[in-house]
């Protein structure tokens, strides 16, 4: 009844002052414009995937699975051979180092900020940590190239190589531009992502759980370890996956620090030798590619990288949606 009355009241007014036809057309235009804008995100993704697939078709047709599993990389015309395997492994190894070093640091930051820091520190320090994400990656690369790699070389790599050089992954003579340095710079670069999301996850743990744990005689460390981290584990895992996504795709800083090996020499057999990730390979080599097949090889590496990133992000999305569930007071 109410709506009927409104209709009869409104209809004459709107047509009288604005004209029914114009109003409908305006709504229609706006609705479709927004739909197109929204669809463009999807279209861009599909175009990217399509271009990478067709672009890499020549190299995949020529080498088949050898393109993924091969280790040789020779662009000389007539003797061309392309294998992406060392760079796939290089990406996984540097990202692995980044998580190994970056995740404990990030969790430490998050735990300190939520559970221990006085209020006066919590907000500014949390903000500064997030600011780390605003530093352009080429700046990390420059700093890494001129400052950080010498610290690592003198205080970490040389001591480890002297005492543990007999372990294969630490073999070789370190000189600072290698998988380890690239992994360390990535560790620093994922801290803002992992720390700030973990901070949100830990803040979302209800206080009643901490109180329950304290009331049965848990120490602060036990409360954090057995209750807070356990309650937030799926959210923290999502944060780690997002950090991994950033580490896998990071290009500039890695390209400047990883030493740019190609071919079988790029196989990550030791952390202290030059390597290559998929992203750094493309950044370093793409402009100089001459033959059609060589261009196709770089595009093919790009396709592998895109698929890996998509897999990680879909995984992260699946897990991060669980954070919101935790926020609503439901766990898993």
């Amino acid at each position, binding site marked *: 009844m109410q709506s009927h009355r409104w209709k009869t009241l409104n209809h004459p007014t709107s047509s009288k002052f604005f004209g029914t036809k114009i109003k409908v057309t305006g709504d229609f235009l706006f609705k479709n414009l927004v739909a197109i804008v929204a669809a463009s995100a999807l279209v861009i993704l599909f175009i990217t995937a399509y271009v990478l697939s067709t672009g890499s078709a020549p190299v995949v047709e020529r080498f088949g699975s050898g393109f993924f599993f091969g280790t040789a990389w020779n662009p000389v015309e007539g003797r061309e051979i392309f294998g992406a395997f060392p760079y796939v492994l290089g990406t996984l190894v540097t990202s692995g180092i980044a998580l190994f070093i970056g995740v404990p640091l990030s969790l430490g930051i998050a735990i300190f900020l939520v559970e221990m820091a006085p209020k006066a520190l919590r907000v500014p320090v949390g903000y500064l940590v997030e600011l780390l994400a605003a530093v352009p990656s080429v700046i990390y690369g420059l700093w890494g190239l001129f400052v950080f790699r010498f610290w690592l070389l003198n205080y970490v790599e040389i001591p480890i190589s002297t005492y543990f050089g007999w372990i294969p992954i630490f073999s070789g003579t370190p000189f600072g531009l290698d998988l380890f340095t690239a992994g360390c710079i990535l560790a620093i670069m994922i801290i803002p992502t992992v720390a700030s999301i973990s901070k949100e996850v830990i803040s979302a743990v209800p206080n009643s759980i901490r109180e329950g744990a*304290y*009331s*049965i005689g848990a120490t602060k460390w036990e409360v954090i370890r057995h209750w807070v981290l356990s309650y937030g584990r799926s959210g923290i895992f999502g944060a780690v996956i997002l950090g991994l996504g950033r580490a896998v795709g990071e290009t500039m800083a890695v390209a400047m620090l990883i030493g740019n090996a190609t071919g079988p020499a790029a196989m990550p057999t030791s952390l202290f030798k030059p390597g290559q990730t998929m992203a750094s390979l493309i950044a370093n080599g793409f402009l100089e590619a001459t033959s059609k097949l060589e261009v196709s090889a770089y595009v093919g590496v790009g396709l592998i990288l895109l698929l890996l990133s998509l897999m990680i992000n879909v995984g992260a999305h699946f897990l991060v949606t669980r954070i919101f569930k935790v926020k609503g007071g439901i766990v898993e």
Partner: protein
Amino acid sequence: MIDKSFGDPNLKMQSINLSAWFGSKQVLKDINLNVKANAVTAIIGPSGCGKSTFIRCLNRMHELVPTAKMSGEVLLDNENIYDKAVDPVMVRRRVGMVFQKPNPFPTMSIYDNVAAGLKLIGAKKGKNLDEIVKRSLEHATLWEEVKDDLKKPGTSISGGQQQRLCIARAIALQPEVILMDEPCSALDPIATAKIERLVVELKRDYTVVIVTHNMQQASRVSDYTAFLYLGSLVEFGATRDIFENPKNPLTEKYITGEFG
């Protein structure tokens, strides 16, 4: 029972000039209160009168709030629990707590909810632990309802059952005192009746301090009642005296429902 060389053997806890603050706001003013052993002491008073803060001072939970401060002493068996040498973790093992909203640990099974406190002090899995868990759940009158679901999450049972699980969790550590902060306020009448019956039973083995905004509940379950108003202790005495012969006109007004 209690060592007779210490003062009054029937006195389990004592607050002496206990004051508490949140930031600059004083919420407790010089509370002097004696808690008798193996009895139920009820703390009543209108919302915001400091009841919850008071019992949270009895097991050093108050200090977990960042801006919280306190002064005065709280004696447990004639020992000041706020002494520098006393570890708050040890205090909380001796003085257990049940909260307003049931808060079983959602990431743990029913079994682990009860066993968690014992595992913290090094209890290993086995028959002995199984036995303690069973006894604690029996004591909290929950065993029959959950004995087949011990592996299910602590949050999978009803609210009233969750609250009894929290009581079992506190009992498992064999504390000397159990503090209850409005344990029935989130529960329906049937679940409330079960908890009340349990409270009366618990005093055989433990000393109970219960905060409640429900005066009927205080009169049903407690032996002693303290009336707090605006952070001060207005009146304290045997429950019957407080409800039948209140000495302070303010107490009388409150229990007759003139304000609250």
